[in-house]
C-alpha cells in the first residue's frame, strides 16, 4: 500500500499523542505511520502546512435505503450540482445528499477519511454495504437500528435478558454493523399502529408491549456495555425537536448510571419551554445539557449543529418527519415501515430570520462553547439533517473566530438569541488543537477506533495537510494534501488517485443457540427466510473487524471472516 513517504517540517496537531503544533516529520510505510523511513523515501515538503490525522465523522447519513430515497425525492438538487468525471475519479451529483461517489470524494476534499452512517434498518444492511462499495476513499461503517425491534422487545418484555444480549450481538454480527442505534425507542412502533402517534415521555407504554422507552434504553445500554463493543449504544432520544425535550434527554442520560452511552445530535434534544406556558416556542437549555455531559465522563455526544441553508431531514424517526413536514409544507416521504424501524425524509431549509431555526443554530454553537471536554462533545451536523457536511469548514470558522461569529450573530433572529447564552460566550474560541480533537481524535476514541484519529506509530496513515489561513473556513475547505492508507489521494488540491476505503464492522460473539429463538420468529413474521437474512461476506470487499473488549461467556466465535 504505497511507497514509503516522509512528510517534512509540518506543524503537527495530534491530540491523542499530546502533540500540539510541533514542527516535526511524519513517516508512512505500508499504509501505517512508522518511526522512520529510508532516506530515499518520497518526501512532501510540509513547511508552513498544518498536519492533522484524517477527519472522522461519528454521525452522518451517507448510504442505505433512506439516503437513496432522499436522493430520489430531490432530483432538482442534482442538476445544479454536477460533479464531472476526472482522469482518476468518477462522476456524480451533489446537493445536500450527494451520490455515493460524490460523497466519498467530497469528504476527502475536506480532509475526512472515515465516516459512520448512523441509521440503517437491519433489512437495509445489504443495500448500505452495496453503496459503501461505491463510496470511495473513506473508511465507513454503519449503526444498525435496533430500538424498535419486535423480537428484542418480546425478549425484553419476558425478562429474557441474556437472550436479549445474544440476540443483539447476533443482529450486529449478521448485518456487519458497527454499533447498535436507538432512534426514538418505541416511537416508530407507536407510529406504525396509530395515526400520528408517538412517544412523549420515557414512561409511556409502547403500543401493545408491556414496555416503556425507559426500560428499553436501559436494557440496550446494559447489553452494549456487557458485549464490550468499541462504540456503546448510540442513542437518538425520544422527543427530538419538541419544545421542552431537555427533560427527556437528561432523564435518558441518567439511565446510563455510569455506563457508557453516546447521545446523538444532542443539539436537537436541548430545548426548553417558557415556564408556565403549555405551548410555547422552544428556548435553549444547552447549559443544562453541557453541564450534565461535562460532569459525567461515561456520557459522550455529538452536537448535530444546524447551519443555515438547505438541508435534508432524514431520519429513522418517522413521527418526527411527519411533524417536520407539517412545518415545511413541501414534499416528504415516509418509508421503511416494513423494516425493523421507520423512516421519513423532508427537504428543509434553515432560515436565519426564523426564530426556531436561529435558536437551533445558536444552541449548536452554545454546546460547543460550553463543553469542557472536547473529547466527549464532538463535531457533527448530523449530515444532512442540520446541514450538509460541506458546511463543516464554516462551522469550524464559527468556533475558531469569535469576530466572525459576532458578525453572523448580528444577522440572525435576535429574539432567538435572547433565549440563549451565546452572547455571553464571546471570549471562547477553539484552537487548532481542539478542532483536531472534536473532528478527529475525539470521534475516533469514542468509536473505539484505535488506529484512527492520531498520528502515533502504528496508526492508519490517514493524514491531511492544510494551508494555514486566518480564514479558517477557507483553510478547512480545501486541504492541500490528503493521504489515505499511505496513498496520496489529493495533491495540490487535486485528486491524484482513487481509493476504495474499508468497511469497519464488529462481530461480537454470541451463543449460537440464540438462532433457535430467532429463527421461528422469522418463519412466522418476516418477508425473508432466516437462512437468507444474514449478510454474507460477498457484500464486503475491503473490510476490517474491530474487536470487542469482552466476549460474552460460553460463546461461539461469530462467523465473520477476518482480513
Amino acid at each position, binding site marked *: 500500500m504505497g511507497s514509503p513517504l516522509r512528510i517534512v517540517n509540518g506543524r503537527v496537531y495530534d491530540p491523542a499523542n499530546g502533540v500540539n503544533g510541533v514542527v516535526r516529520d511524519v513517516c508512512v510505510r505500508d499504509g501505517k505511520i512508522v518511526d522512520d523511513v529510508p532516506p530515499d523515501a518520497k518526501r512532501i515538503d510540509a513547511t508552513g502546512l498544518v498536519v492533522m490525522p484524517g477527519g472522522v465523522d461519528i454521525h452522518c447519513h451517507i448510504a442505505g435505503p433512506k439516503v437513496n430515497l432522499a436522493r430520489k425525492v*430531490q432530483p*432538482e438538487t442534482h442538476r445544479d450540482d454536477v460533479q464531472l468525471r476526472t482522469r482518476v475519479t468518477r462522476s456524480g451529483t451533489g446537493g445536500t445528499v450527494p451520490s455515493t461517489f460524490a460523497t466519498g470524494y467530497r469528504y476527502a476534499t475536506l480532509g475526512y477519511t472515515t465516516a459512520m452512517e448512523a441509521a440503517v434498518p437491519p433489512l437495509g444492511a445489504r443495500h448500505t454495504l452495496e453503496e459503501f462499495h461505491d463510496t470511495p476513499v473513506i473508511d465507513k461503517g454503519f449503526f444498525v437500528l435496533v430500538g424498535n425491534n419486535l423480537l428484542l422487545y418480546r425478549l425484553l418484555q419476558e425478562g429474557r435478558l441474556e437472550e436479549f444480549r445474544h440476540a443483539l450481538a447476533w443482529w450486529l454480527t449478521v448485518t456487519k454493523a458497527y454499533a447498535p442505534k436507538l432512534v426514538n425507542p418505541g416511537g416508530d412502533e407507536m407510529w406504525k399502529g396509530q395515526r400520528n402517534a408517538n412517544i412523549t415521555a420515557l414512561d409511556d407504554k409502547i403500543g401493545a408491549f408491556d414496555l416503556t422507552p425507559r426500560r428499553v434504553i436501559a436494557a440496550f445500554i446494559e447489553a452494549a456495555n456487557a458485549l464490550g463493543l468499541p462504540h456503546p449504544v448510540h442513542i437518538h432520544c425520544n422527543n427530538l425537536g419538541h419544545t421542552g425535550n431537555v427533560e427527556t434527554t437528561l432523564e435518558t442520560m441518567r439511565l446510563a448510571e455510569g455506563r457508557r452511552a453516546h447521545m446523538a445530535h444532542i443539539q436537537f434534544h436541548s430545548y426548553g419551554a417558557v415556564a408556565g406556558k403549555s405551548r410555547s416556542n422552544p428556548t435553549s437549555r444547552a447549559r443544562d445539557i453541557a453541564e450534565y455531559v461535562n460532569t459525567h465522563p461515561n456520557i459522550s455526544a455529538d452536537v448535530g449543529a444546524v447551519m443555515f441553508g438547505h438541508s435534508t431531514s432524514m431520519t429513522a424517526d418517522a413521527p418526527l418527519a411527519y411533524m417536520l413536514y407539517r412545518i415545511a409544507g413541501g414534499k416528504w416521504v415516509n418509508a421503511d415501515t416494513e423494516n425493523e424501524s421507520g423512516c421519513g425524509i423532508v427537504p428543509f431549509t434553515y432560515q436565519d430570520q426564523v426564530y426556531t431555526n436561529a435558536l437551533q443554530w445558536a444552541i449548536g454553537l452554545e454546546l460547543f462553547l460550553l463543553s469542557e471536554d472536547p473529547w466527549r462533545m464532538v463535531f457533527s451536523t448530523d449530515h444532512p439533517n442540520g446541514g450538509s457536511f460541506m458546511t463543516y469548514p464554516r462551522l469550524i470558522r464559527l468556533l475558531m473566530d469569535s469576530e466572525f461569529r459576532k458578525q453572523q450573530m448580528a444577522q440572525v433572529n435576535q429574539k432567538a438569541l435572547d433565549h440563549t447564552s451565546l452572547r455571553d460566550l464571546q471570549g471562547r474560541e477553539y484552537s487548532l488543537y481542539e478542532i483536531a480533537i472534536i473532528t478527529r481524535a475525539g470521534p475516533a476514541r469514542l468509536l473505539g477506533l484505535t488506529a484512527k484519529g492520531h498520528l502515533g506509530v502504528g496508526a492508519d496513515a490517514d493524514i491531511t495537510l492544510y494551508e494555514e489561513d486566518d480564514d479558517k473556513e477557507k483553510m478547512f475547505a480545501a486541504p492541500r494534501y490528503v493521504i489515505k492508507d499511505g496513498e496520496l489521494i489529493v495533491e495540490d488540491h487535486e485528486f491524484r488517485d482513487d481509493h476504495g476505503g474499508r468497511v469497519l464492522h464488529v462481530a461480537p460473539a454470541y451463543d449460537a443457540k440464540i438462532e433457535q429463538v430467532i429463527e421461528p420468529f422469522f418463519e412466522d413474521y418476516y418477508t425473508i427466510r432466516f437462512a437468507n437474512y444474514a449478510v454474507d461476506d460477498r457484500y464486503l470487499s475491503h473490510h476490517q473487524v474491530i474487536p470487542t473488549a469482552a466476549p460474552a461467556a460460553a460463546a461461539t466465535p461469530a462467523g465473520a471472516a477476518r482480513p
Partner: protein
Amino acid sequence: MSLALTLHTVPTVPLEAEVLSPARLAGLSAPEAAKLTVVYGNQRADLGDFFKVGKGADGELHLTGDLARVKRVGMGMAEGRIVVHGSAGMHLGTGMTGGEIVVEGDAGDWVGSEMTGGRITVKGNAGHMVGSATRGSAVGVRGGEILIFGNVGNEAGSGMRRGLIAIGGDSGDFAGVNMLAGTIVVLGRLGWRTGAGMARGSIISMHPAELLPTFAYACTYSPLFLRLCLLHLGRLGLPVARSQVEGRYQRWCGDAVELNRGEVLLLDSAPGA
C-alpha cells in the same frame, strides 16, 4: 455577437450546446466561437465540429439547420435575440431571464422550463413540458411569455407561477398541472385532466373540455383581462378570432383539492346564452 451558424453535421445523438447563447458568443470571432466546447453524447467536442460559423448581422444570433438533437439553445440567456431557421431540440431557453428566441420550425420537450423572463416563439409544434417545472421542483415558469403556434404535448405550464403561455393548436394532457398562478391560453383543444392540482391561475380554451370532477361551474361572463390578453396574442400573430375576443366564457373553479382558487375558462358554445 452577430453570428450566423449553420449546422453542417447533423448529430446522431444529442448535442448539449448551451454555448449557443448571446452572452456566450458575445465578442467572439468566428474561429473563436468554433472552438467552444459542446457535449456530444458522453464526449466533448468543438462547436465547429457541427456548425459552420459565419458572420451575422443585426446583432442577432442566427442558427440554421435541423437542430432537433441540439439541446439547451439559449439556456439561461438574459438578453439578445436568437433565431432558429429550422427546428430546435430539448431545453430550448430553459431558465432564460430575458431576450427573445424565435424558432421557425418545431421545438422539443422542456421549452422555456423554469424561465423567469423574455419571450420564446415557436412557429411549429413543441413537445412535452412546455414552460414547466423541472422534475422535483415545485415552481415552474416565473415570468415571460411562451408562444407555440402549433400543438404541444403533456404538462404544459406545470407548476407555473407567473407569465403567459399561449398555444395556437391543441394541448396534451395535464395542461397547467400543479399551477400556482399565471395564464395558459389554448386556442385549440385541451387534453385530459387540465389544471389538476392547480392552486391559482387561469387556463383558457376555445373548445368544450371534459374537466376533472374537482372543478365546479361558477358562471358565464366576459372577463376583461382575457379580452386584453387575446388582443395582445393577436398582435403577436396567433390566430385569435374576433368572436373569441368578444365571447363569453364559462368559468370553472378548481382544483377543489387546492381550495378552488384557480379557474378554467371555456369559450361558451352558445354565445349570448
